[in-house]
């Protein structure tokens, strides 16, 4: 009846959140004696100014989109998969490990890349499965379990980079020995972004959208998330579904890690997950766990990340300012949702 009106009011509140976060960041900029408008213009320029920059935005967009797809699965079952960062990292480690095994063989590079990416997905799934086992069998809250597993994954990653997989003669923060070029995911001409990784991201988004919107499995995940006891009473095996949702998330995170290795860095680096997992959590909250908004919002976050690079160069500001903008955006949108609920009345 009043649906269109309710929806436009909703949109108004979302935009209100955006406006407030921009204001908030502007105030911070003014406090550090900088020009807010100039900073925003620089971010915009930095993200869209030329084709190289746009391709860089897409390089960030792909893993962001993938991890958030995974997170939608765990959020649907009512869980906070903080361990997503570790799952990306382990995915990257598995990919690197498997690729190293096949570097010297005569197998075709296409096959090696495929196997390595699959290995990365399995690695992510294993790491997510661990968080799931801790949760369902050990009674460890997925947030604590995930945090612990994140630390272990980071330690493992650093350990490998400086130890077993270190470059001959030098062990450095710049990572392992880069792979020969035939083992890279092919890119557009001279741009950094690979058509393959974009394809993966879009396929992943379509899969997760239809899984959550249209399948019996997705509905069962939702039922488990909304009321575990009732779902069980209605005949849904609950712990199995929780495990599956973790594993699905892990597959996506692992894929993101694999793409970081095969398409972006072509080696394992210490900060291989680039904080995309945590950013994915923010995006998931911002889009209210609806896959339909995922692609544009992830693109916006990616653009902020890349655009922010200009800030230290031109304005001598720290690029973490875009992080502040992203974080405050989530906060203000959530606040405005709370206000809206109070304003419109619940139910």
């Amino acid at each position: 009846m009043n649906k269109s009106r309710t929806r436009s009011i909703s949109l108004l509140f979302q935009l209100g959140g955006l406006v407030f976060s921009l204001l908030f960041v502007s105030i911070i900029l003014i406090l550090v004696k900088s020009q807010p408008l100039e900073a925003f213009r620089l971010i915009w320029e930095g993200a869209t100014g030329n084709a190289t920059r746009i391709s860089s935005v897409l390089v960030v967009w792909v893993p962001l989109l993938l991890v958030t797809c995974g997170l939608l699965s765990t959020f649907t079952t009512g869980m906070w998969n903080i361990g997503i960062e570790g799952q990306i990292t382990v995915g990257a480690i598995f990919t690197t490990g498997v690729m190293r095994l096949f570097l010297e063989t005569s197998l075709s590079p296409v096959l090696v890349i495929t196997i390595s990416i699959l290995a990365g997905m399995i690695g992510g799934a294993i790491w997510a499965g661990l968080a799931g086992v801790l949760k369902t069998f050990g009674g460890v809250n997925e947030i604590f379990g995930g945090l612990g597993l994140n630390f272990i994954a980071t330690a493992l990653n650093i350990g490998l980079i400086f130890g077993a997989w270190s470059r001959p003669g030098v062990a450095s923060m710049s990572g392992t020995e880069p792979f020969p070029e035939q083992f890279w995911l092919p890119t557009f001409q001279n741009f950094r972004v690979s058509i393959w990784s974009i394809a993966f991201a879009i396929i992943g988004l379509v899969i997760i959208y239809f899984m959550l919107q249209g399948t019996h499995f997705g509905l069962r995940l939702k039922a488990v998330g909304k009321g575990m006891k009732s779902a069980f009473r209605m005949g849904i095996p609950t712990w199995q579904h929780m495990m599956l949702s973790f594993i699905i998330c892990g597959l996506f995170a692992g894929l993101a890690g694999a793409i970081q290795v095969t398409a972006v860095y072509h080696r394992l680096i210490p900060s291989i997950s680039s904080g995309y997992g945590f950013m994915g959590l923010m995006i998931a909250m911002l889009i209210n766990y609806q896959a339909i908004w995922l692609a544009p919002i992830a693109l916006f976050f990616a653009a902020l990340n890349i655009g922010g690079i200009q800030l230290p160069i031109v304005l001598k500001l720290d690029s973490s300012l875009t992080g502040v903008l992203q974080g405050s955006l989530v906060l203000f949108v959530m606040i405005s949702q709370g206000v809206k609920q109070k304003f419109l009345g619940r139910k």
Partner: protein
Amino acid sequence: MSSPFLKIKREKMNVEFKNINKHFGPVHANVDINLSIKSGSIFGILGENGAGKSTLMKVLSGFIQPDSGEILLDDKVVTIDSPADAINYGIGMLHQDPLDFPPMRLIENFIVGQKGGLVPSYKSTMKDFEELQKKFGFSLDPEAYVDTLTVGERQQLEILRLLWMGANALILDEPTTGISSLQKEKLFAALKILAEQGKTIIFVSHKLEDVEALCSRVAILRKGILVGEVPAPFDSDELVEMMFGKVITLGERNNLSQEKVVLELKDLYVEQYPLRIENVNFQLRAGEVIGLAGMEGSGQDILLRACVGLIRPISGKVIVKEKDLSHKNYLEYMENGVSFLPASRLEEGLVPGLTLAEHFTIAGDEKKGLFIDKDYFKEKAEKMIDEYHIIGRPDLNVESLSGGNQQRAALSLLKNSLSIILLEHPTRGLDIESAIYMWGKLKERCQQGTSIFFISGDLEEILQYSDRILVFFSGHVSPPMDASTTTLDQLGQLIGGKGWKQVFDTKEKL
């Protein structure tokens, strides 16, 4: 025990509603309600489910705000924004479902609502608690955890807490559902004491007998409208007519049981602290209705849950249709045609946040491809809504349905060809009409050979609809009794632990 945190100190309080209106979407839940309630009396609010009683009380207790109208306390207009605000004004509400903190101890629950002071004083609170509960003859253990209490005991706890926080007006929403008759007696005695002290008691119910036994005046709501007010003594027929606009008779008991045994319990031994149930031997026949009678927490819920794999037996056997399921889990029981409807609908029955259509999608056996056939399940939901007279739409979330409609929905979700249905308090919180309807539907299933095992706190319901009865008393289970030869008095005595020796010739010590 006088409360240290009242906004306004007073001993008595008159409550008045003026032109209260409240809409929920298209539903006009309260239509221009005018009502004046004097202190020192027990005032009944009577009406069937969805008549607007709970809405009106939630307005008074600050849970919801009216669209228009005023509330006057002692002739002064007040705005009650929240439950905390209500308690500051001295209005306390006891909800249909207890709103306490189960994993905490009683005394902690008691202290939680307290204001001021960084460190709660256990010692003085404990003293207050003991003094207060002695006044009403309650015997709660302040150190016990709330989740070990029965609904009746949780209710007692909540009453004490509200009084301790300084409630002058006490609202009780369907307080007699789910509590034993002994607890009911205690509750009524306590309410009478409170009324004598000058407190305002508002007693919301759809049970005529309770209202008649307790209230000095009653207001009747129907479809959101205040139909009228009647002072005691009441004429039951008149009240029923005001509630429903028509007179209703209860359905008949008809014995549909066959010879085939569908469920057999052999030397069953189950334990759930603090109760232990031993040596249960019983055969349930196809089409039979078995009522489990007993005060709340006497073990009937443990036995019921043991019959569906939610509690694993320590020893003995549960045999369903000649298949030993003793150590199988609930999902395997379901596969064997056993279904369970728990008492707490939104915790264990339905999934809040999912629509009716989504519930039918999950519960159905048909159309289980990868993708959901949304049109099919929407149509199915519409059909069931029609068939079960559910007031709602397929795209409505279940939590927005009223209690009675939730129960109808839960019933309509049961699969068609079930061998056994286990029910906890199937008609708790339902009005007479819904209850009769519910049983009509259940009896239809019995005709098809489904057996029913049900728990109820309402002895009349047990006598009315069961073929045989099992009586529980602190973990002891009686041999089955024929319902047609059992009287209400007899049953009442047995659930109180009296007369077991004579009736069952048992050597057990009680």
